């Protein structure tokens, strides 16, 4: 990676009690690039994202944004969007209020009418009809909730977007649609993206670069096109979904 990384992690460690989840993670994402972090369940992928966001405080290490330690998290979050694994939509708000949530807060908030119009436009961008805007999240299917979550993540046109298991729980066709949408949106916005997943179809559709997390460290990091010839037994086992190999599986 040439130049200063948009997001860089240096020796990040995090333990919960006696469970060391991250044991010194070094990772960087170039500006405008899409990094996908893969790894088995419980390898600390979500904790990694939460450390970058400041929701979880690392025990050691540095997290650098544009080459400097993060001083103002509010400022960083104002240019940030995230799609959560389960959507994390607010049950008590309608779909358009969810999508426009950030736009209705703060000093530079939009009027209700403008925010609603923008929310409908973003919903259209992710392939949802305007009528959906007035429904509640509980009335939508899992795939539609994911799309609403995606619309909310891009509503303020962020420069950094995180996707946490974007295709979990979706059928293969809907997963393909979400993957395509994510790729299109990231390219259109020119955003820096980090996605965590263990779905290899997502990896191939979304990633510019891939990093594999195993035993709390980055096991392999490279261009997505090189992943099939990584020469790493752990990566090979993971991407081919084999039960036999160096990664222990519970039977």
């Amino acid at each position, binding site marked *: 990676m040439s130049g200063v990384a948009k997001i860089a992690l240096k020796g990040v460690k995090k333990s919960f009690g006696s469970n060391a989840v991250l044991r010194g993670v070094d990772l960087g994402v170039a500006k405008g690039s899409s990094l996908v972090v893969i790894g088995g369940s419980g390898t600390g992928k979500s904790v990694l994202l*939460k450390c970058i*966001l*400041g*929701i979880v405080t690392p025990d050691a290490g540095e997290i650098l944004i544009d080459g400097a330690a993060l001083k103002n998290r*509010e400022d960083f*979050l*104002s240019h*940030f*969007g*995230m799609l*959560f*694994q*389960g959507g*994390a*939509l*607010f*049950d008590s708000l309608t779909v358009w209020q969810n999508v426009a*949530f*950030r736009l209705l*807060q*703060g000093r530079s908030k939009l009027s209700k009418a403008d925010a609603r119009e923008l929310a409908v436009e973003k919903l259209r961008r992710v392939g949802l009809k305007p009528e959906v805007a007035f429904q509640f999240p509980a009335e939508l299917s899992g795939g539609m909730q994911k799309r609403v979550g995606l619309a*909310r993540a891009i509503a303020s046109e962020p420069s950094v977007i*995180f996707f946490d298991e974007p295709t979990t729980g979706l059928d293969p066709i809907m997963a393909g649609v979400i993957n395509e949408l994510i790729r299109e949106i990231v390219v259109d916005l020119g955003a820096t993206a980090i996605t965590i997943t263990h779905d290899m179809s997502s990896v191939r559709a979304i990633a510019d670069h891939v990093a594999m997390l195993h035993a709390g460290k980055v096991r392999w990091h490279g261009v997505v096109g090189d992943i099939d010839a990584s020469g790493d037994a752990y990566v090979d086992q993971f991407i081919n979904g084999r039960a036999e190999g160096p990664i222990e599986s519970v039977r």
Partner: protein
Amino acid sequence: MLAINILTEALASIGRSTLGLLASIGRLAIFAGLAISHMLRGPFYPREFAVQLLRIGYFSLPVVGLTTLFTGGALALQIYAGGARFNAESVVPSIVAIGMIRELGPVLAGLMVAGRVGASIAAEIGTMKVTEQIDALTTLSTNPMKYLVVPRILAATLAMPLLVLIGNIIGILGGFLVGTLRLGFNPAAYMSNTVDFLEAGDITSGLIKAAVFGFIVALMGTYSGFHSGRGAQGVGQATTNAVVSASVLILASNYLLTELLFPS
């Protein structure tokens, strides 16, 4: 040797429990301090506050009203039966009023609201935590303490005195109905006895208690929700904790407030 081991294990167990309790008290104190500090600093969410005021105050009216109505009636019957032992049946109106306003109104309303609102707050926030909605708030540049905790605590602290005020009136009405329809009191004399023996301090002390109980209910609800475990079991446990801890704290603080407000 075996006896020493058993004793050591028993002492260790007591030590662990004590440390656990102290840690919980510390976490709660930090949470309460943080919530109060956020009440003093913007941004504020007036819409959220109004919604909570409606949920906590207005929608608790039926349950508080019914509770105080029947308690007022039962109180009149009990005082009449007790007073009859030494020919003091005439104290029914004043004792019903004083009992309701100073003690039963705030405590019963507090306990009922702890069951209805405290449980609901803990379940709602616990579910939000489990489904990552609280993390989502943070990523949307919204502080969960300001958006979720402050409006609920403020609304409960303000709504409870109003609820208790209305509950007191309904409770006294319950006593009035039983007193006049069942025990044969003259309506005008009953009302006159009710008002004549009441002092302003009786009313203000009840309202102060109510505000404190409202604060406790919302604090324990939000705290339990924020510290909810994972899954349905975690949320269920958080809901139980919210109701039990709020109820115990209401009864304990009621004693302390009574000592403070009515020193003997």
